[in-house]
């Protein structure tokens, strides 16, 4: 059907042209407005000059942040005490629901598993790789390849791993790498990976670990390189080697960085949503908090419950982000 294909291609092309014209038009209009405002505001002189500059420079950010973040967040907190269409105050009923319903129990347990296991494994692997690679030639090649998944979206990563976990009956030729490996190692009937709880939750965590290890490795590697050589030399004079050197010198010297990496991965993990949504849609007992929040708000249309779950997520993330930001700030200040 060469005709219909070329017609399709032509309509796709014209559609793309319209979209790009609109997009770049919007950017041009945005820049033009800013330049115009700059020009007009630049004419203000004397006592007016400074207040005008403040309003023009800082005003847009404050308006956008107020309308897009501050007010909505307050409103979410407010909505969490109302029913599904926000017409009636129901007190703490949504929170009661979140902490007593069996389904949501499973969600909270899964989320807890995620934030304990995934960050610990990620940090441990990142540290091991940083230490291993620290001694090698061509280490940047290895590091680049391990860092590479950081560039891939969680959706892309999920599809990559869904293919690895693909299930076929044992009698047919396998196309999933994991099943094939298991069978090659003598396990003749591997399970349908994605359907078998609780194993599937851990298989989903593998994706998170795969993506985030590169981040942990780069940060920890920089911290290890920053340990003064005199300290390492002194420890070696005293007879520390290999494992002892690692546990008594390296690890204590980079303890702060380790904690920052751990909390950063925890924050990412707590908000993880794409992996579960793409792999299982939250089925087969793999649901987590962030995805349940989305499902309650936008699939079930229950704004009250969705808002309550968002608030729970916020409260869980708060100490981690708070700690993290303070640490980052302190590090910057001392440098």
């Amino acid at each position, binding site marked *: 059907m060469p005709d219909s294909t070329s017609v399709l291609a032509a309509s796709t092309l014209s559609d793309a042209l319209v979209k790009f014209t609109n997009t770049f038009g919007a*950017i041009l209009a945005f820049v033009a407005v800013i330049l115009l405002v700059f020009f007009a505001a630049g004419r203000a002189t004397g006592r007016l000059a400074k207040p005008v500059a403040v309003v*023009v420079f800082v005003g847009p950010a404050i308006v*956008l942040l107020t309308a897009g973040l501050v007010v909505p967040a307050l409103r979410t*907190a407010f909505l969490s005490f109302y029913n599904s269409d926000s017409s009636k105050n129901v007190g703490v009923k949504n929170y009661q629901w979140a902490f007593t319903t069996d389904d949501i129990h499973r969600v909270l347990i899964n989320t807890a598993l995620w934030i304990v296991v995934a960050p610990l494994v990620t940090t441990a692997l990142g540290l091991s790789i940083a230490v291993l690679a620290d001694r090698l030639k061509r280490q940047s090649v290895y590091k680049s390849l391990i860092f590479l998944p950081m*560039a891939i*979206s969680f*959706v892309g990563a999920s599809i990559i791993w869904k293919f690895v976990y693909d299930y076929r009956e044992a009698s047919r030729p396998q196309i999933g790498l994991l099943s094939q490996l298991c069978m090659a190692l003598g396990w003749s009937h591997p399970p349908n990976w994605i359907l078998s709880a609780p194993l599937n939750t851990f298989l989903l965590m593998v994706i998170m670990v795969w993506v985030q290890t590169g981040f942990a490795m780069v940060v920890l590697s920089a911290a290890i390189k920053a340990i003064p050589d005199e300290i390492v*030399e002194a420890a070696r004079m005293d007879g520390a080697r290999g494992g002892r050197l690692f546990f008594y010198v390296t690890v204590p010297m980079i303890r702060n960085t380790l904690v920052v990496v751990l909390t950063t991965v925890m924050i990412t993990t707590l908000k993880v949503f794409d992996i579960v949504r793409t792999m299982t849609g939250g089925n087969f007992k793999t649901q987590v908090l962030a995805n349940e929040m989305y499902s309650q708000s936008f699939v079930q249309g229950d704004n009250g419950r969705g808002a309550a779950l968002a608030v729970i997520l916020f409260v869980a993330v708060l100490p981690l982000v708070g700690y993290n930001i303070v640490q980052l700030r302190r590090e910057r200040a001392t440098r």
Partner: protein
Amino acid sequence: MSGVGAVEATLAPPVTGPAATRAVRKVFSSPVASVAMIVLTVVWTIPTFGLLVTSFRPAGDVANTGWWTFFLHPKATLDNYHTVLFSGGFGVGGGLMPYLVNSLAIAIPATVFPLVIAAMAAYGLAWVRFRGSDAVFFTIFALQVVPLQMALIPLLQLFSGGLHLGSVQILPAFGLGGTYAPVWLAHTMFALPLAVFLLHNFISQLPRDIMEAAQVDGAGHFKIFRTIVLPLSGPALASFAIFQFLWVWNDLLVALTFTGGGPEVAPLNLRLSQLSGSFGSKWELLTAGAFVSIVVPLAVFFALQRYFVRGLLAGSVKG
């Protein structure tokens, strides 16, 4: 591929001479570490490699044999990419092409808008000192703790239903359905706390002498911002731009909430997420589609590795 190492070098203060480093490295060096590292790197790369190989295999081969058999019976084709991109292999006219266009049309403005607005705010807070500027900066900085989830429901209500106070309508419905504007706006708003923080760190460190010299020459704030601050802030702007572009390109949550999911506005990533459920068995198409979506970030990664790593490290707490 020296980007990752180069960034580490800039993160770590140089403490030792090269001789000492070499001596230490020689002592530590061991074949065991080399082998372990090679094994790990291979394990890390194989899943992506399998995806890439599968996307070039004919449909029949993909359905019946594992991708590793490709090396015994190599048979490659570009059909999958053609189907996925142009001839609607996923049941939508035009295949993934409209979504790819949408991804670009969302990501580019959603990078430019917050970049400009944040640079302006950073300059205003750092160099147009006014009473309360520190408090404003700290508040913006502290907003980083608010997860996106906290803002989604009300923001969506605002875009689709306007603003009410009790029963009084203050703002009408925005009427932006079916356009990119809600996604652009949402991404811009969510990007600002981190963007202002990062750019402020950089812009506030610019040399005071230059600013004062320009002021003495009679340049106003707007001229200084355009002709001095923006050009000097190149590296910081580039790092943030790359981080934000990839964040938007790889985002699912904001797209899902603010675009609806049709071919008019929805980005590639969202479409792939839907397809992985409904076309989960057509691996030759799904792998090709996934590769189309990850090739852009990979290109950015290899071309601009240094900025990329720096941007990602700086932005690691975003969300």
